[in-house]
């Protein structure tokens, strides 16, 4: 570990491999979302109105529940990466930027956990 680099890296972000690594993860999530979001749109269309019984019947099928979990998790991840880029670009000032990043991360974790829990609760609760 080079001390000078580690120290200067504290406030400036990585100018090396880190950025590419994170960008790659954003791209991977966008790949995954191509089929997942197409499946999700088709599933919503197949629901024919969003009544309770139809939603429960849909998510009580194991594979549908798994795909729904993947869709929620991947979307939350993709959204988190996207919002992070937006914050980096438009929110100025170190403190405000850091705060915005933290709020975004917390909200995204909440969204991911909420979505996963809801899908699993419906999936396990339906008989």
């Amino acid at each position, binding site marked *: 570990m080079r001390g000078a680099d580690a120290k200067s890296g504290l*406030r*400036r*972000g990585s*100018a090396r491999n880190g950025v590419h690594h994170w960008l790659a993860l954003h*791209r991977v999530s*966008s*790949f995954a*979302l*191509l089929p997942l*979001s197409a499946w999700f*749109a088709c599933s*919503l*269309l197949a629901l*024919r*109105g*969003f*009544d*309770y019984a139809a*939603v*429960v019947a849909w998510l009580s099928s194991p594979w549908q529940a798994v795909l729904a979990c993947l869709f*929620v998790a991947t*979307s*939350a991840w993709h*959204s988190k990466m*996207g*919002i992070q*880029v*937006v914050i*980096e*670009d*438009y929110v*100025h*000032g*170190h403190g405000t930027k850091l705060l915005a990043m933290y709020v975004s991360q917390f*909200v995204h974790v909440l*969204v991911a956990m*909420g*979505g996963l*829990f*809801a*899908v699993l*609760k*419906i999936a396990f*609760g339906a008989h």
Partner: protein
Amino acid sequence: MPARPLSPHLSVYRFAYTMSLSILHRATGIALSAGLLMLVCWLMAAAAGPETHASVTSALSHGPFQVVLAAWLVSFVYHLGAGIRHICWDFGYGFEKHQARASARWLVVLVALVATGLLYLFFCPTGVRP
């Protein structure tokens, strides 16, 4: 502020219509983030039980929310289409100016067609209304 260059220094460029597509990709992405939050709230309502689900769904069936849902649908189609264009660029295809302009036109036409079709399927026959 990071010392490295950050992307949108929009004011220094002469405006080209392809830029508005890029800005729209961002805007629809932000809209879809809000949409994901709403989707999870809806799933949570379904997980909470039939009564909560019914109240949320009936709230969503009102005029203003229907407009928002329609906007999310169009945003989804646009962001998906523009995202495919971005993936092609990541692999090095379509970077030439004439190619980028052609794909921009295709994007607008295809998004308009697909979005219109999906809007019809979602809102017209049975409607999103419960």
